């Protein structure tokens, strides 16, 4: 497979980023270091090139109905200019992907999906759009995505686009071909910007001149994990139901018929929890979780939380646990104690 490069590839190499293949893209994993980058986002602001993520247009008289049927969250009746997080369940009650649905109007939407699932999502959309009045367009070529995240994101971006101060969280505005969206996946507040490549380069350069730190995908992962946000391939898979994940809050059963709903209601049984490690060690995906000397599940994601200075993990288990329960995570030859805690691990700064 050939790897794609974002329009900012040369910028990343000039900044001496450590690059690695990710979902078919050569992406910056880190610049200065994950800990320093993580802290920059929590305390100031950081800029991510997330142009690898998929952007797919869904338009037409049946677009809203289709997206509402494919999503476990409500899409129907959302106001224009809103951005909605949802999981797309599959027919077996597992998860196709998690994504954000952007609504321009009742007949004009686009979705931002995980890079690794772009083709699967396109196929899924096309399959269920058959016989409906919906056009699906992949914005793979010529477009990019930036995420400006952190408490200083608002003053920084409003120095370029004063109108962003009016955008409510989980909403967006359109400025020509540029979409300015008050969304993100770090819990630090901020914006995501969808634009043609030439605008992406201009904006990246301007924000760099304003002193914003570039942030790689490594810190993106530690930031999202501190918030207890799902990452597809970890907390959500083809076999894990949205209701068995930390994204369960986004599933709306009431007055909502959606693909995979019944299968999901039959399937659900496992539960997702956040765990703070009490012993030293770093839990990773696949490490067994034990309770009462019995394996009850696995770690889906684990890392070191730079904010808490402790190791944290998300687990998927087949029994209910209470906040405060002590479980064991088997890390290679070591049994590490962990405590079930409320999510997010780190309180949001707005």
């Amino acid at each position, binding site marked *: 497979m050939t790897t794609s490069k974002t329009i900012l590839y040369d910028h990343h190499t000039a900044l001496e980023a450590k690059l690695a293949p990710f979902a078919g893209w050569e992406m910056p994993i880190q610049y200065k270091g*994950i800990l320093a980058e993580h802290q920059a986002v929590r305390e100031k602001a950081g800029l991510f090139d997330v142009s690898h993520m998929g952007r797919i247009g869904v338009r037409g008289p049946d677009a809203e109905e289709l997206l509402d049927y494919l999503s476990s969250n409500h899409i129907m009746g959302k106001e224009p200019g809103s951005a909605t997080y949802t999981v797309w369940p599959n027919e077996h009650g597992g998860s196709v992907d998690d994504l954000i649905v952007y609504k321009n109007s009742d007949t004009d939407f686009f979705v931002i999906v995980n890079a690794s699932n772009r083709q699967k999502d396109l196929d899924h959309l096309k399959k269920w759009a058959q016989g409906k009045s919906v056009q699906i367009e992949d914005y793979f070529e010529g477009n990019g995505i930036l995420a400006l995240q952190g408490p200083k994101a608002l003053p920084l971006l409003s120095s370029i686009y004063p109108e962003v101060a009016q955008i409510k969280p989980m909403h967006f505005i359109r400025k020509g071909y540029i979409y300015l969206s008050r969304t993100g996946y770090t819990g630090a507040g901020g914006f995501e910007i969808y634009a043609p490549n030439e605008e992406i380069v201009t904006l990246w350069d301007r924000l760099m001149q304003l002193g914003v730190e570039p942030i790689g995908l*490594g810190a993106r992962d530690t930031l999202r994990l501190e918030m207890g946000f799902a990452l597809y391939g970890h907390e959500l898979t083809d076999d894990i139901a949205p209701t068995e994940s930390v994204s369960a809050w986004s599933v709306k059963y009431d007055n909502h018929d959606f693909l995979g709903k019944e299968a999901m209601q039959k399937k659900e049984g496992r539960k997702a929890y956040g765990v703070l490690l009490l012993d030293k060690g*770093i839990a990773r995906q696949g490490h067994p979780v034990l309770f009462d000397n019995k394996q009850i599940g696995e770690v889906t994601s684990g890392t070191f939380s730079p904010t808490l200075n402790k*190791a944290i993990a998300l687990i998927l288990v087949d029994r209910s646990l209470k906040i405060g329960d002590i479980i064991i995570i088997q*890390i*290679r030859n070591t049994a590490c104690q962990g405590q079930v805690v409320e999510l997010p691990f780190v309180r949001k700064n707005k």
Partner: protein
Amino acid sequence: MKYTESHEWIENGQENIVRIGVTQYAQKELGDIVYVELPTTGRDINAGQELAVLESTKAAADVYSPATGTIVEVNSKLTDHPELINQSPEDSGWIVKIKVSNPAELDLLMDRQGYDQFLNGK
């Protein structure tokens, strides 16, 4: 010092108790080290066997013993200060001391010049 292709170093002195650690190149590749899983002292270890695990913010990496011997001491400072490996990988960020059982084994490893050439070839 002698070096391995898996980026460990081992002291190569007159003494047969020597320090082992990872190279500057290795720490740069791994990024911020946040935890070091150290072995227990007294354990016998073969050349090429897993000696310790370095956990970075991103992933876990095994450290292999460059030589056969017995672990006589571990760098317990790493328990609370894993960042020593980033700051000083080839000195105060050493990982274990071993008593080498077959010093001739070290002759098979690369010297600094050989290791630098190996890195340049990557």
